[in-house]
């Protein structure tokens, strides 16, 4: 975990060569809720998108170790351990 103030001012690169640096969650914020909305010949129903939003959390949790190695799962695990330790007493 990085301390406060370290590297926070450098914006994440969102350009081609920094693609991996674009957090998937930031990208999906934009791609699912933004963009020119045209009714394509093959459409995703609004209900479908809502469904995506609902299930996104669980899905992203499951894929994150691949997307962003070592961040999410590791942090969640650490948080759980802290929680356990605090409760043990």
């Amino acid at each position, binding site marked *: 975990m990085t301390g406060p103030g370290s590297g926070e001012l450098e914006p994440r690169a969102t350009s081609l060569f920094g693609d991996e640096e674009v957090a998937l969650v930031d990208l999906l914020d934009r791609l699912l809720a933004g963009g020119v909305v045209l009714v394509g010949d*093959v*459409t995703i129903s609004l209900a*479908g998108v809502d469904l995506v939003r609902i299930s996104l959390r669980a899905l992203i949790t499951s894929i994150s170790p691949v997307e962003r190695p070592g961040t999410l799962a590791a942090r969640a695990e650490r948080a759980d351990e802290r929680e356990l330790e605090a409760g043990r007493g």
Partner: protein
Amino acid sequence: MSDTLTYVYAIARDVGAVSGLRGVGGGPVRTLEVDGVTAVVSDVDRGEFEERALEERLEDLEWLASTARAHHHVVDTLGRDHLVAPLALATVYFDDDRVRAVLAEGRETFAAVLDRLAGHAEWGVKIYARKGGGSAPTEEARPRSGAEYLRARRKALRDTDSALDDAREAAGEVDDAVTALATATRAHRLQDAQLSGETDPMVLNQAYLLPIERVDELRALVASYAEHPRIRVELTGPWVPYSFAQAAQGAS
């Protein structure tokens, strides 16, 4: 019936022939132009995008992630040198003629959207409440009893609540200041800690459409909050203007 569909990435202006750029599923990116308005497209596999398949696919996050990245790759690459209005993810038509018809029909709307986006880029500002709101987390002795543990836990929760309120207030100040620089703003949902991978709670997730010449002011503004005790400000961008490409979007 053809076994491909035409996937549209963006509406653009003054994009000539595109070469060497690959889109969703690896197909080469092409352009279709009608009266000066260009659609950036590629062929995608019909089976993969037929309606039912698509609904199922959207539940498959690996597919969603790779499609989103491929879509982003195309609009971001073209957006560096051209004016682009990205489309929402997975907009597909039966064939090129259908896309040309849509371009012709929506020509004025698209031109207006492109005019509004010209000379601008999108920036994202995410603000997190600093844990403990500046006061270092206290390394207290292990609670000796269950009651003591619960008291400590309740106190911790109260402290968290007030730290969150302070953080929200500070975030509001940042939002006002960035809004003053921006042409338009748009709120995104706060990202759950599980989604963002951050341990600090998010209190603001906002997109700003900023004139390109004001970028330095934005950076300086964000930098001025670097040592803020209550909040941590994260800047992302420049993005192609995903959050501001909707035709019906009013200026704010």
